[in-house]
């Protein structure tokens, strides 16, 4: 990607480290340096958009001009368990197996 004139380095190494942690990526020092530069350039490129005056523009929730797509609450066949598990690196025939998860569930 060509460097932009206004591509001030807007990201710090700490920013990139944090994003890498959230994405569960382990980066070497060299990767961290190059990614900090590259990501800064991308952010710089995108930030050109902020030069536009958007006062009279409605926020866009979706690029398609379509709304209210629903399905009825009717059951459809599920996969067979064997098929559902087929692509998993490890399973026991019933469940997906993953390295131990301790503590409470992370979600909802």
């Amino acid at each position, binding site marked *: 990607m060509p460097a932009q004139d206004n591509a001030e380095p807007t990201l710090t190494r700490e920013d990139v480290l944090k994003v890498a942690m959230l994405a569960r990526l382990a980066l070497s020092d060299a990767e961290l340096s190059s990614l900090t530069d590259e990501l800064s350039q991308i952010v710089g490129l995108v930030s050109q958009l902020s030069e536009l005056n958007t006062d009279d523009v409605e926020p866009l929730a*979706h690029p398609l001009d379509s709304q209210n797509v629903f399905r*009825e609450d009717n*059951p459809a066949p*599920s996969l067979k*368990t064997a098929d559902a598990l087929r692509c998993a690196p490890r399973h026991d025939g019933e469940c*997906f197996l*993953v390295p131990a*998860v301790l503590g409470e569930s992370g*979600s909802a």
Partner: protein
Amino acid sequence: MTAESKHPFTTVIGLEVHVQLQTQTKLFCGCVTTFGSPPNTQVCPTCLGLPGSLPVMNRRAFDLSLRAALALNCKIASFTKWDRKNYFYPDLPKGYQISQFDLPFSYEGYLEVVDPKGAFEPRTVRIIRVHLEEDAGKSMHDETAGTADSRIDLNRTGTPLCEIVTEPDLRSPEEARAWLNELKLLLVYLGVSDCNMQEGSLRVDANVNLHIPQPDGRLAKTPIVEIKNMNSFRSVERALVYETERQWGEWQDTGAEIGSMPKQTRGWDDSAGVTRGQRHKEESSDYRYFPDPDLVPVTVSEEQVAAVRSTMGEPPALLRKTLAERWDIPAYDADVLVNQGPELVEYFEDLAKKVGEGKVASNWMQQDVLRMLNERGGHIADFPVQPTAVADIIGRVKKGDFDTGRGKEIFAAVLETGKPVDEVVAGMGIAAVDEDDLQKLCEELIAENPKIVADVKGGKEQAAGGLIGQAKRKNPNVNPGKVRALALELIRALP
């Protein structure tokens, strides 16, 4: 209340409640949501997050959540969308949860709770927002098996959940529990959710801290703690009582105030009766929400809102009033009946209609039907004695075939044996005692009890009570009231 009365602070509690909507299928695919099926039998490419699959929103899930929001007096957004909440966890196969971030479909509602015994003042709890999102799967780790693996069951993944977030308006653990009961009742009456906590259809997280007035007039606030892993309303109350005391102790030790540390999450350990610290919660921005490009926005018109409103039926708070008026029963009775849920109210109204007297029906409901139901466990829908049978027994008591005590025995026997009332009555040798037999019996009693006769003649009418026990021993089917009346009449007629 407990904490408030003992300590010079205000307990401030807000709740976050997730309820599973009563749909047949998941939020974005046609997999069924049946609880307790074998692992990974209710999964498909969409809820597994396989490449190339696309989510399509379940209309009923949206309508049910709309109903919940309206019942909670929320405003309905005319335009709403869904966002991706990104985080990594093995029970979340897509790597994001489809949820709602900045444009939830409803916001700014409230639900009031009133304690019938007046243990606390009526409390109106404001609702910040209600939104619709998908559930995650389940991870299981069996430490005794000695394996290093966790097992993942994705049957629950993609199940529709309504998330209800309150303002921190509750002021005691007791209030929190009562409010949750009212919320549950409301959602059950509206058919939004079965709210079965054992099956995870209703889950509660609580945020709590203390506001402690200082000598200089400043209000010190302890750090907010979010409590998780509470699997009953009783646990919620206990966890909040524990956490209130813990925070008060910590405040006295450290004086730590809100803002001095990141928000803490603590898990409730029900058997130990303590909360324990968990990981520090990722900040909201760490979830990197963005609009889900796989789902188009939803718009809601005033007409749609009106249509949903028109099919909602009576919420419990209103039903308590109308039930009391309709059947002329005390507010307390109506409260007890309504709090048992819609099926029990239906049972009661059926019985009251057949008996023709609300109060009599209500008494039988509370003293017999509910008592037996509690003893046996289970649900009124599975209760083997139908209102017709109970009305039959009550009718015979009214006619004077037997007294109320005998009627209760018959009710218990009908419940026990599953036989029709007629058969039970016959089997117990209960038959209406005819007037001649009654006359003969009373004459015998009078002849056998000169002392009682003398007492009654001497003005002590209550002495006639001694005859009733004897009469019942001679013939268990006699009506005590009738024996008493006839015996007195005969004694008075004696020279």
